[in-house]
């Protein structure tokens, strides 16, 4: 990454212009209920529509009113990866926010604050007369939006259109009030605030703005999802909500179950009846579903679990992020049966890997997991439209009915038995939670048990044939190799680029599938590296442990984050310092 230079001190207001190159970093802080999420959404969309790339990560408390939330926005000419650590601009909607974040400002930086707070004159302070611009507190978000828009040099139309759309259900009066506040704020900022032009728009345009859960929803829709069983739990709920939004048009039944146990068992029933099924949840909810995972294994029922991690144990930190449920998902469910775990690293992965998960679930007739986390789930990002035409078709069940009298659901001549759909023809389809014979009837015979267990386990070959190898980038035979999975990958790529810019021979190995693992696809990389460092969002380096168990390769050095916050480039660089010194 190229460092950003602020050309003029914000104190020299006579120039009224501050230049940033390539990227602008903004933090907005305030209380829950002040509408910062709305401001972040509207601003983000306007920025992306203006042709820039965006990442807007949210750090929110688990409450509806009060507390302190912040949104960290990174705007660039080119695609941006990972949330920023330091900022050009702090937009404070509460006094507390100034105190909490002023240390994160780059030097020099700008602070937007309410004039009514009468803050002592500090470098970079821009006091906004919110009381004049927005008569009622409810309009202050829009006032802030107007100030930021004018400072960034964005056209008013980029906001007007969105405000009209957003508030049209509340009536013309609310829309015109919002538009008046927007216009007043933009005018005030044009006259009184410094200009902070955004990095130039370089891309082809046509970018979309969405978060990881929305990309998962689109991936599921593109795969033909037909049933979603869920019980609300942050940060997975918005997957179900996204499907609810599309349900009638797209022909998806979305059932809010009485509990997670029912949600998962419903998904299995729907899948048995031929409906592609997804179960979105987070760690605590997923823990309740583990018996159903085992049922999917023995009954050979396809199902996709989207497990969006948040910090545990138990209730943990409800609205924060972590990568500590890898082992939970890997070992969930009693007994032994194959599974695949995909771990999206990017927004694009959220879409494509969810789509792939449905295919893998049907191909292997069992549970497949999309293991995401709160950061990916809720960070909004600019993204090019997904390639819908290029998607591989999803495997179907056997929609035939040949020789129905002799149909055996668990025919063991092949590891993957033809899965017929009850009611499609005259074939009788039995799904059983017991150990069973080929037809699906309960048995206790040891020989049949062994043969059936071997048949199920042989489906690992199907999963192994489809394994996504980790992505390697950086120097060949590096002195320092960073290993990560899922959402830590974006940061690793950026850290690797910085290290290489600073003269270190560095590389990173990024896993987007964490089970099963194919050692041949990465062992040469591990063995060719000098020092290998595992970078994970948990306290015990779970993936490094899995690599050791699978390959014997012991990664000794780790950078671990488990304070509920997202891994950032600054965090990783800081912790790498002693390791770099020892190279």
């Amino acid at each position: 990454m190229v460092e950003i230079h602020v050309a003029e001190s914000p104190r020299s207001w006579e120039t009224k212009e501050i230049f940033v190159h390539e990227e602008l970093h903004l933090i907005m802080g305030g209380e829950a209920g002040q509408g910062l999420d709305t401001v972040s959404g509207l601003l983000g969309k306007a920025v992306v529509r203006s042709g820039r790339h965006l990442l807007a990560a949210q750090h929110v408390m688990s409450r509806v009113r009060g507390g302190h939330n912040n949104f960290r926005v990174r705007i660039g000419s080119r695609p941006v990866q990972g949330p920023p650590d330091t900022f050009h601009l702090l937009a404070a909607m509460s006094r507390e926010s100034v105190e909490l974040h002023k240390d994160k400002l780059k030097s020099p930086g700008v602070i937007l604050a309410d004039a009514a707070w009468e803050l002592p004159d500090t470098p970079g302070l821009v006091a906004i007369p919110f009381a004049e611009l927005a008569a009622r507190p409810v309009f202050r978000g829009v006032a802030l939006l107007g100030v930021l828009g004018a400072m960034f040099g964005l056209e008013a139309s980029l906001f007007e259109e969105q405000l009209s759309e957003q508030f049209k259900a509340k009536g013309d009066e609310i829309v015109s009030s919002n538009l008046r506040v927007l216009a007043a704020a933009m005018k005030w900022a044009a006259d009184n605030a410094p200009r902070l032009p955004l990095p130039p728009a370089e891309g082809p345009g046509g970018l979309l703005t969405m978060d990881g859960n929305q990309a998962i929803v689109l991936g599921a829709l593109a795969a033909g999802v037909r049933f979603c069983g869920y019980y609300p739990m942050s940060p997975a709920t918005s997957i179900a909500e996204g499907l609810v939004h599309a349900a009638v048009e797209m022909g998806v039944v979305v059932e809010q179950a009485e509990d997670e146990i029912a949600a998962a068992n419903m998904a299995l029933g729907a899948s048995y009846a031929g409906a592609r099924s997804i179960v979105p949840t987070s760690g605590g909810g997923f823990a309740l579903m583990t018996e159903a995972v085992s049922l999917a294994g023995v009954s050979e029922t396809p199902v996709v679990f989207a497990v969006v991690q948040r910090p545990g144990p138990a209730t943990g930190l409800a609205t924060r992020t972590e990568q500590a449920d890898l082992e939970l998902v890997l070992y969930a469910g009693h007994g032994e049966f194959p599974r695949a775990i995909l771990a999206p690293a990017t927004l694009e992965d959220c879409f494509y890997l969810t789509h792939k998960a449905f295919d893998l679930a049907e191909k292997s007739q069992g549970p497949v997991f999309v293991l995401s986390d709160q950061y990916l789930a809720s960070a909004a990002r600019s993204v090019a439209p997904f390639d819908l035409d290029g998607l591989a078709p999803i495997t179907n069940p056997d929609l035939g009915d040949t020789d129905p009298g002799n149909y055996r659901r668990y025919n063991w001549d092949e590891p993957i038995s033809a899965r017929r759909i009850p009611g499609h023809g005259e074939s009788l389809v039995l799904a059983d939670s017991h150990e069973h014979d080929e037809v699906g009837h309960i048995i206790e015979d040891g020989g049949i048990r062994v043969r059936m267990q071997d048949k199920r386990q042989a489906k690992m070959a199907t999963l192994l044939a489809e394994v996504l190898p980790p992505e390697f980038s950086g120097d060949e035979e590096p002195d320092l190799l960073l290993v990560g999975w899922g959402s830590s990958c974006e940061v690793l790529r950026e850290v690797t680029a910085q290290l290489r810019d600073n003269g270190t021979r560095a590389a990173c190995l990024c896993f987007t599938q964490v089970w099963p693992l194919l050692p041949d696809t990465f062992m040469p990389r591990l063995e060719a590296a000098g020092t290998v460092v595992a970078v994970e969002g948990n306290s015990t380096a779970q993936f490094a442990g899995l690599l050791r168990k699978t390959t014997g390769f012991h990664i000794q050095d780790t950078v671990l984050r488990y304070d509920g916050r997202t891994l950032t480039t600054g965090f990783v660089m800081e912790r790498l310092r002693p390791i770099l010194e020892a190279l």
Partner: protein
Amino acid sequence: MNDTKTYGEFKTSWCPGCGNHDVLVAVKEALAGQGILPHQFVMVSGIGQAAKIVHYLKCNGFNGLHGRALSPAQAVKLANPEMTVLVESGDGCTYGEGGNHFLAAIRRNVNITLIVHDNQIYGLTKGQSSPTTMTGHVTKNNPLGVVDQPFNPVAVAVAMRAGFVARTFSGFHEHAVKTIVEAMRYPGFALVDLHSPCISFNKLNTFAWYKARCKEVSHDPGDWAAAMTVASTFGEEIPIGVLFREERPSKDAQLPQCAGEALYRKTVDMEAVKRHMLAYA
């Protein structure tokens, strides 16, 4: 018209004389009487002696987890409303482990029929008390007699205005068949609490005990207050028959997604996916 032979004969692991044999025959007769062929229905069960019934007749079957029969059963019906869906399990599975699902299924009102083989004891695990075991009953796990109050499933169902609530007894064969048929014909969630004695572990609630107490109801099943009174009666007299009945549209009949073809037959409308995607522009 087909007969019960259509559903085959299977060797069972039930004790000779167990009420479950009578339930199996009654279910086969109810199916045969309505002309429902094996491939035209799905039978879903949980775990317990009763739940093994899926393996003892020709059917599409989903023998799931203990307590969880209702969850997949409702989803099967939502995914394919053309299918007839029957759920069979015992009192422990349905009212104990699956209690929350029982309450939710009543609220959801998916058009399925729940037949609970209610023997007031745990049979598979050999004699522990169940949610419907009577207070004072000495069981293996309650040597001083059960202290807890029994759960009254039909009273709870009527209180929640479940659309079809019935009780019957496996020893009254004709009554059981007639009740099951009526439940299956009801276009919504139908509960049949079917007392079916366990001859090995329940020496209190025996064939003779039920036979002496079960009496056909005479109230108007549309009268909720009367139904509450009848459903709350259990002891020296056990009212059997349709206790409560009220018509309301089932969930599967109300969801637009469920109209028309089964979900698995729907193809992906990529143009619609594209529209949803481009809404993020």
